[in-house]
């Protein structure tokens, strides 16, 4: 082995250890038969995985997270697809500024977004926690939606739309008959990306969670503060498996990585 490839091997090895290592530790810790979160596990059992489903607050927060992920992403797409279309097709004045504004949630730390929404939206206007969480998640997903859909629009030639116009379509008709079917893959990819992002979102949700309204990751944090048992590890495993599963299926059937 040449020195350079030894170095490369070491870096790749360490990367894998740090990426996959925690995952393995958590899986093993969740499989413990003991009553404490410990590594290495104290015997093997599935009892903590079963426990997860009996915790009332997990069930509620799971549905809240699901709701936010699905409807937040749909909202982001309803706003984001026309925005992406406008950016990709028209010479709009200030398109650069719009694109920057749209990607700002990617740049601004979530803690600041969360704090700002709490201080200036929830407190003065009396927005419900749920409404604020919903808005925040939709806004956070929007940049992903715009970016992914824009790149798949750029692969569709403009003259294909013009051909539809000449053959008798209205502008709107050509969008639904020609543009939409050709960017469906990109929209689905944006949906999956948005869903996973929203579901795993912590910092913004942390500020906006209130009594009785928590997303699942926040609920897990709260649970750990009072009850230090391995069910949180088991839940973390289940969530990780869900995310990996979704992305795997998306890659398999959609070529997900083309869009992201």
């Amino acid at each position, binding site marked *: 082995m040449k020195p350079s490839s030894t170095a490369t091997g070491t870096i790749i090895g360490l990367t894998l250890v740090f990426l996959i290592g925690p995952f393995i530790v958590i899986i093993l810790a969740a499989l413990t038969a003991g009553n404490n979160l410990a590594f290495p596990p104290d015997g093997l059992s599935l009892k903590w995985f079963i426990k997860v489903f009996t915790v009332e607050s997990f069930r509620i927060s799971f549905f809240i997270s699901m709701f936010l992920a699905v409807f937040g992403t749909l909202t982001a797409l309803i706003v984001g697809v026309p925005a992406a279309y406008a950016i990709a097709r028209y010479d709009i004045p200030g398109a650069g500024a719009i694109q920057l504004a749209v990607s700002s949630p990617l740049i601004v730390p979530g803690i600041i977004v969360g704090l700002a929404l709490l201080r200036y939206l929830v407190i003065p206007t009396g927005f419900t926690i749920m409404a604020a969480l919903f808005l925040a998640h939709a806004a956070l997903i929007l940049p992903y939606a715009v970016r992914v859909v824009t790149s798949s629009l750029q692969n569709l030639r403009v003259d294909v739309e*013009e*051909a539809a116009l*000449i053959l008798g379509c209205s502008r709107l008709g050509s969008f639904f008959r020609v543009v939409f079917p050709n960017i469906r893959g990109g929209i689905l990819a944006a949906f999956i990306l948005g869903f996973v992002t929203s579901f795993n979102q912590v910092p913004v949700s942390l500020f906006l969670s209130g009594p009785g309204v928590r997303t699942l990751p926040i609920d897990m944090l709260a649970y750990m503060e009072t009850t230090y048992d391995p069910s949180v590890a088991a839940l973390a495993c289940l969530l990780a498996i869900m995310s990996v599963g979704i992305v795997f299926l998306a890659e398999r059937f959609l070529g997900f990585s083309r869009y992201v």
Partner: protein
Amino acid sequence: MSDFVSVDKLTLAYGDTVAVPELSFGIGKGELIALLGPSGCGKTTTMRAIAGLMTPKSGTIRIDGRDVTRLPPSLREVGLVFQSYALFPHLTVFENVAFGLKMRKAPNIRERVMAGLESVGLRDFANRLTPDLSGGQQQRVSLARSLVVEPKVLLLDEPLSNLDARLRLEMQMVLKDIQKKTGVTMIFVTHDQSEALALADRIVLMKDGRIVQSGLAEEMYSAPRSRFAADFFGFENILPGRDGGLLAWRPTAIRLGDGPHEGTIRGMSFGGDYRTYVIDSALGEIKGSVRAGLPAFGEGEKVRFDLPEGEAVRLEAA
């Protein structure tokens, strides 16, 4: 005004940049005409305006007596074969060709589509997806897609330029055949004079958004009136005559080996039937051709030549 398509004082602009100022021309029913010119001459812009893909600043466009200037593309009864073919990538060949008929809720769609595919020789490709086809096949699908809706005017953007020599000849035959069978009025845009000559009944030569000269293909080829037209149609030697006017010769009209002038051979290009020499002389750079069978000149060799005035075309304008 008996023109089937008439363009009257048409001004087209991109923002504040005028691409075509006050252009006027007319086309007879069933004519096949070429808008010819270098890139940026406004020919494609003009075609897009006729199709309705561009809104004119002023002027009118009439098709079959109807003012279509403000109509959306869908109501103009025109077809357009794009240079890139612009097929719908998510649809099959059949569905592509059926698209316009479906939009019009036409009867007998299946039969009409199959007849359209038959006419371009693609009957067996009906169920294929378009990205799987070759460029030539895609173009024929695009042509069938435009023709099945029986447009009054068929527009074609550089229809031959993406094809190799053999397919070019084939497509030329297909287009001439369509003209004969359907009598559709055709306008095509090209930057290539040989394409225009091969296909068009009449040529409209454009430069900077204006018509330089228009006329029958043969007339344009043999009697260009301006330096620009002469240059475009291959009169590569343009010199002032004795009376101060301009004379133009094709390289084949120059007589090499004998004559009153002398020059030095600087280079040669072999074009199959002819060898064309670039000669440095007191008159400037002269291009002269000699039949390939005749003895060749070497580079750097001194050669005498003649510019026979009988073979020259007299140009009216600079």
